[in-house]
């Protein structure tokens, strides 16, 4: 009997490896090999079409990076953008989730309203908002001027501080819904009896939220925060289409700067160093979150 089991086990083992192999190959080719090659490229000089042989230059590109103001600016923009958007998305997301957890008529349309911003292509969404922010013909200035809230057009995307806020609003609008969906799923898994028990103890709604709901939502909130923070740290097409990183470089994210270095300035190897640093930033952020998740248990 043990003989047949182990044959079955071995067959299962080999079949399983056969089933997994194509996926592992594709992921290795598209995700793992390129990041490894980027690391190699960042330590050398070469040309994009392979006409010049690779020459090792050590940390030259990294020391150039440290002395490039535009890199520090892009890092600052990316971190600021993340620091503004994530807490706002979390607050709006919790609010939307609590709202969706109530029973009311027209739930289908409300759910579509929550899902729709998530489903939109970020690039086209950025164009849509760029049109609304347009200082001459945009919806926002039309409303602001006609209602008398402003006496001259507001330059939503043309002022350094305002552009960052405008860009953050677009991101918050688009991605709070994702937070809301994850948190809503968490809300729906909380047993009703807990609230009944709370009511017996004479808890107010706020106390219920603080003492029952929030602690049980910690796991889904952390998951949503990880996913969203990683997205915010690599934001690319939003500034690409909304502001092209401007005015000057006020909204130039790390991804956008790296893209310009690689494909506009054709500084292939310096760009590789940039993306490696960006990867390290995201990796560090994930470690922080993983540490937080660990502490939960």
């Amino acid at each position: 009997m043990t003989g047949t089991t182990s044959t079955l086990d071995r067959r299962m083992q080999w079949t399983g490896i056969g089933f997994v192999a194509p996926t592992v190959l594709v992921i290795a080719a598209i995700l793992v090999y390129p990041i490894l090659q980027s690391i190699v490229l960042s330590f050398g000089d070469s040309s994009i079409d392979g006409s010049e042989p690779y020459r090792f230059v050590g940390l030259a590109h990294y020391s150039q990076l440290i002395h490039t103001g535009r890199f520090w600016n892009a890092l600052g923009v990316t971190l600021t953008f993340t620091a503004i958007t994530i807490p706002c998305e979390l607050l709006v997301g919790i609010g939307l989730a609590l709202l969706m957890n109530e029973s009311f008529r027209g739930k289908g349309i409300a759910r579509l309203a929550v899902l729709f911003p998530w489903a939109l292509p970020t690039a086209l969404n950025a164009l849509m908002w760029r049109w609304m922010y347009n200082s001459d013909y945009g919806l926002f200035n039309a409303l602001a001027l006609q209602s008398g809230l402003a006496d001259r057009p507001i330059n939503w995307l043309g002022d350094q501080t305002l552009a960052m806020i405008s860009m953050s609003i677009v991101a918050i609008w688009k991605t709070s819904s994702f937070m809301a969906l994850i948190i809503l799923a968490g809300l729906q898994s909380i047993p009703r009896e807990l609230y009944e028990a709370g009511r017996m103890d004479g808890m107010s709604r706020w106390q219920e939220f603080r003492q029952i709901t929030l602690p049980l939502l910690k796991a889904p909130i952390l998951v949503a925060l990880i996913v969203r923070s990683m997205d915010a740290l690599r934001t690319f097409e939003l500034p690409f289409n909304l502001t092209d990183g401007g005015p000057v470089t006020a909204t130039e994210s790390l991804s956008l700067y790296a893209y310009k270095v690689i494909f506009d300035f054709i500084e292939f190897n310096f760009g590789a160093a940039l993306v490696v640093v960006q990867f390290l930033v995201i990796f560090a952020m994930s470690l922080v979150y993983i540490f937080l998740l660990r502490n939960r248990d």
Partner: protein
Amino acid sequence: MTTARPRIALYTLVVLSAVISFLPIVWLILTSLKTSTGIYAWPPQYLPQPFTLENYINIITNTPELLLYVVNSFIVGIGCTAASLALGGLAGYALSRLRIRGARVMMVAILAVTMFPPVSLLPSLFQTFLELGLLNTYTGLIIAHTGLFLPFTVWMLASYFATLPAEIEEAARMDGMGFFRIFRSIVIPLSWPGFVATGLIVFIFSWNEFPLALVLMTQNSMRTAPVGISLYPGEYAFPWETISTATVIAIIPILVITAIFQKQIVGGLTAGAGK
């Protein structure tokens, strides 16, 4: 919640959220239905005066490449969805059911690689695709998107397979069925809701993907909708009547899919993130 005032507050909040959610797309659709004069008029026209389909007709007759972008997006999206479901289905089944050694480690590794920022893949992918002649080919972008979204597919399908009762497969194995036949004729028919939800989300991901589609399709005629429309404006002028109309056309497929399958998509998203 039986008193009237909280109900009113609740409905006010719901209506307000829905308005904020739909405002940009409604404004865009209204813009696409205005004449060029109407778009740039002062005082602003909130409703098109007159309503016109001029911009849509213009795109069909003068700039059909904008429609070609949508066709390209469909080809890449369907190809990527089919490839992801086929490969990810097999892998997800093996990792959740076939008791491979190291399956857990492999699942975590697959999740970890999704951390790579897409832009960090660009220098190398561009170079490799150039050497292999894969730039500006559907095959190339389909492979790239499949690689990008396979981790998500594997996780979604693996967690779906884990909910199936194991007895049916065991009985089939007693009857001497091979693993591939079990997967094809028992597991797939039982898990089609999982495949549908995963497939829809992967299609939306592929439709919306920007950096790889931007860099791997450099020929105008091969561009996908988000990239083609974004690059359409050119250097100086920004023809909003064309841009708004093309954007509406490129968003409609996504809007329709989301509206019809909202339950499946929400179910899939929350299951995927709950792990």
